[in-house]
């Protein structure tokens, strides 16, 4: 199957409850919600922001931001971040010259100067730029965890794109490093900061669906769970300044250079990718686990399904709720869909929805209020990057914090391992090991290639 060049999930801003960008601050959100809500619009009580972050932020409180591995997806996130008034992007590090320069053009154009610095070598970047407070990491999957660990060790707060780990061990390293250095970390599961998905979560949390027994999580409709190990034909390695192939590979096993990898063709390879399950499961598992109160645990039982993708796999959580993986459009229409089913109703939501689909229209009668109250209760804005920046200032954990990332990605990894070994699995999230399955336990980690070792 041909992979689309760009999907809903890969584009920012994502559609939200109001069909508007996820960049909305609370005031804008409420105004749009009122317009969209028609006869059942919420009352308009608009608070300011804690710490007075709205409006011009004094230079002393400006967040100095850098980027690591900013390609197409990363540029989207960066465009989301650049308008924040208290953020100044100053430098980018990338193994590819073309990407370094593209980001520099974007940033310099935004600021009207030529100041954005470029770096090829990550370790030099982290060592030299002690002025940088936080980094946006948007490399391929293979680098997310390692770059996060190295950046946090260098004292940076981190916004990392998903999937944020290649193995269970990598995820654990991110958690430990963030705690060790007291860093703020946000993984790019931005639907946890979007109106439609928040409505679905709140319908579940407030008991309006009754007792929830099943949640369904979308997995990517391309690639498979089983991934490729072959090498593409060797091509002459370009000069390091053009593409630093050793750095591009990072901790992964060496293979000869082929330019296709560096142009997005790394997907589907075991060494670089987390499969069709990780591609969207990194989002949808997190959404489901947060919704069912399992953000700090992972699935405990994985039922193998005899197909190539994991479609239909049932993952059970300790609270008795089943999460069913679904590849097609049966339960939603759009990317990264989730559906929550309870004894009294269901809700289904995916990208591109004007509002969630529900078993009864009454469930949406006060949808804007649900979001409103969620924001008041949690002090989370409906903007994922804003939550990150707020937390950098307050030092409170983000909505997609390291633990949430690690446990939802542990479920992703365990589901992949279940598919690779073609048998049911039992997993102990506390001990972070498979029960009675030594071979599965061997797949929890991969040795990193020197010198890119944690």
């Amino acid at each position, binding site marked *: 199957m041909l992979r689309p060049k760009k999907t809903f999930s890969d584009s920012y801003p994502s559609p939200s409850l109001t069909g508007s960008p996820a960049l909305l601050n609370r005031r804008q959100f409420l105004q749009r919600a009122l317009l969209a809500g028609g006869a059942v619009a919420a009352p308009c*009580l608009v608070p300011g922001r804690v710490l*007075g972050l709205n409006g011009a932020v004094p230079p002393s409180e400006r967040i100095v931001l850098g980027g690591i591995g900013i390609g197409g997806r990363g540029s989207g996130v960066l465009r989301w971040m650049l308008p924040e008034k208290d953020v100044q992007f100053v430098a980018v590090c990338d193994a590819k010259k073309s990407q370094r320069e593209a980001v520099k053009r974007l940033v310099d154009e935004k600021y009207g100067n030529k100041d954005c610095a470029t770096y090829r070598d990550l370790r030099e970047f982290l060592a030299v730029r002690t002025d940088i407070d936080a980094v946006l990491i948007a490399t391929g999957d293979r680098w997310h965890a390692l770059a996060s660990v190295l950046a946090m060790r260098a004292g940076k707060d981190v916004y990392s794109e998903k999937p944020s780990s290649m193995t269970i061990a990598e995820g654990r390293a991110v958690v430990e490093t963030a705690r060790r250095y007291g860093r703020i970390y946000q993984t790019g599961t931005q639907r946890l900061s979007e109106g439609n998905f928040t409505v679905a979560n709140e319908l579940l949390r407030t008991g309006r669906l009754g007792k929830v027994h099943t949640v369904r999580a979308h997995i990517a409709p391309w690639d498979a769970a089983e991934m490729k190990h072959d090498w593409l034909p060797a091509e002459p390695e370009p000069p390091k300044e053009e593409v630093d192939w050793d750095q591009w590979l990072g901790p992964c*096993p060496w293979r000869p250079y082929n330019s296709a990898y560096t142009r997005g063709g790394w997907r589907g390879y075991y060494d670089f990718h987390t499969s069709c399950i990780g591609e969207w499961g990194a989002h949808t598992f997190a959404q489901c686990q947060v919704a069912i109160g399992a953000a700090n645990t992972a699935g405990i039982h994985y039922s193998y399904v005899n197909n190539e993708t994991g479609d239909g796999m049932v993952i059970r959580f300790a609270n008795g709720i089943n999460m069913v993986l679904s590849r097609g459009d049966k339960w939603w229409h759009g990317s990264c869909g989730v559906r929550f089913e309870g004894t009294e109703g269901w809700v289904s939501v995916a990208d591109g929805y004007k509002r969630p689909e529900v078993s009864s229209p009454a469930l949406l009668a006060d949808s804007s209020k649900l979001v409103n109250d969620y924001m008041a209760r949690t002090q989370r804005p409906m903007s994922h990057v804003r939550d990150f920046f707020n937390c950098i200032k307050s030092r409170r954990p983000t909505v997609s914090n390291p633990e949430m990332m690690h446990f939802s990605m542990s479920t992703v990894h365990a589901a992949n391992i279940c598919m690779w070994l073609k048998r049911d699995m039992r997993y102990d999230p506390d001990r972070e090991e498979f029960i009675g399955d030594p071979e599965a336990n061997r797949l929890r980690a991969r040795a990193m290639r020197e010198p890119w070792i944690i």
Partner: protein
Amino acid sequence: MRTLKLISLVGATLLTAGSPSSLAANSQSNPSPQTALIATLQSNATQKEKADACRQLARVGGRDAVAPLAALLPDERLGHMARYALERIPDPAVDNAFRSALDRLTGKPLVGVIGSVGVRRDAKAVKPLARLLSNPDPEAAQAAARALGSIGNPEAGRVLLAAWPPASAANRASFAEGLCRCAETLLAQGRRKDAIRLYDLLRKETESAAVRAAAWRGAIAARKTDDAVPLLREALRSNDRVVFNAGLRALLETSAKAAADAALGEMPRLSAMDKAQVVQILAQLRDPRVMPALVALATNAEKPAVLAALRAFPEIGDPSPVPTLVSLVDHSDRELREAALESLAAMPGPEADQAILAMLNHPDPARKLTGLDLAARRRLTPAVNQINQLARHHDAQVRLAAVRRLGEMGGSAEIPPVLDWLCTARETAELEAAEQALAALCAKEPNPEAAAALVAARLAQATTPQKAVLLRVLSAVGGSAALNAIRAAVKDPAPEIRAAAVRALGSWRSPEVAPDLLELAQSAGDPTLKSLALRGYLTLAGDTEVPARDRLDMCQQAAKLVEKDDEKRLLLGVLSGMNSPAAVGLIEPFLDQPAIQEEACTALVGLAEKLLQGKQAAKVAGRLVAPLEKVARVTSKADLARRATELVNRAKAAGA
């Protein structure tokens, strides 16, 4: 190639075989996949084939594979893949092999092996790793420090402790990482004093902010509460933002009330912004014991801290601040007032509910309005009866708000009282509020037919403006009962009712009303009704959910009826959105009508662009040339003329 096939065969075997651990254990007695994989390693196989063999051995390798894999460790091309397998083999022979390699290797292979020793936490490797701390290769020394940290036993701690003071600037970050890892392990083993010693050593670091942050966080978190509190205070008094933040992080990790008290005790010394930051962290602890102090803060601190406290209340969840929040709902400062309202709306528990019910009973209408707002935000359904009563209140604002809230919070039972209310409404604002509420209530009604019947039953006794409301509500509800009622109203003797009924038909959400609208557009005696019906009919024709064939038919019917220029514009708008060659002929006559010529040109160009992109481009191209040439001639817009000319060329090319 033969080897490649062998590896593939082995891989396939592994996928279908039983437990690989049993495969490994039985390697002595049965020829196993492992044997073949080892043979690959020892053959003249390519790098790729050997790498694949290592990958498989990571899953199934046992003791027999250790020596062949260890032999590859010095190999710059395969050393990593050898470790890839060895790291995952649960056999002490692996540790022996790695330890042995520590003394033999240099450069990148050595760095890799050091990393693997750390992953395996081989306690016997402390001495060789200790020697490596002074290795002239900084990468080896740094890796050794991190590996020692991962081993994390007291001996490793002593080694790192001794190595820290003289560590070079380049090595300090990794040595600190090792010390922190070691401290964490020691702490987990109950060796608190040893852990604290390591953190305290690192606290003296002045250069690296990251190390200071880790050291201070660790030093506070590692201590028992009594010892931790003075250090926490010191951190919160620090002018070093890194240390202050580390203190907050440590506070976040503690559940001790004394720590929270210490933080609260520091409040008077802190700036307003720092106070707010501390409050946000305290809120994360969700400890109700801090609530009295936060309530006090909410009444006498600087505004940022007050705002933070107000917003922390729902997160902590304790009901004690409810009276404080109530006292602030009419504060003169808008930001404070709204923060208090937000918190009251989000506070869990019956205390906030009771406070809001009391607001509804308050004699001051302004307080009632606040209560109504909060009741709706909390979905306070026990308040519905009170709100029903407030819908009859003497204050008009209260009445209107109450009716709107009934719509948001009520259910089927509230439809009759709101209908009653509507039937007494006279003012426009009242009618609008009732309409809003009824539409919301009927939307929630699981049986729309029943809701429509209730609404329709009021038509007979309603005034003309009230009937217009009822008809609009019926249109929104849908269903056969609603449609019958609207159809009946179309024949009402009062022109205003007839017009409202036609409008209701025009806003109907499905095409079943198209024949009604067409008939009215064709034969209604009243020109207003005729025009309303035609507009409704064209709106339906523009609905892309209606089948294209039907839409075209509707346009053909409408083309015979349009008289006014705005009706023609509406038709042209619909036609330009079609994707049918038949639409060309419907647009063409309007190209000669000066008042709408430009709209006709635009519609034709839009239609032609779609047609020439479609599968039937060649078929329809000839039909498009003449009208497009006409557009190019008659339009006054240069851009449109250019697009038309381009389309002419494309049409000619497609038809050639």
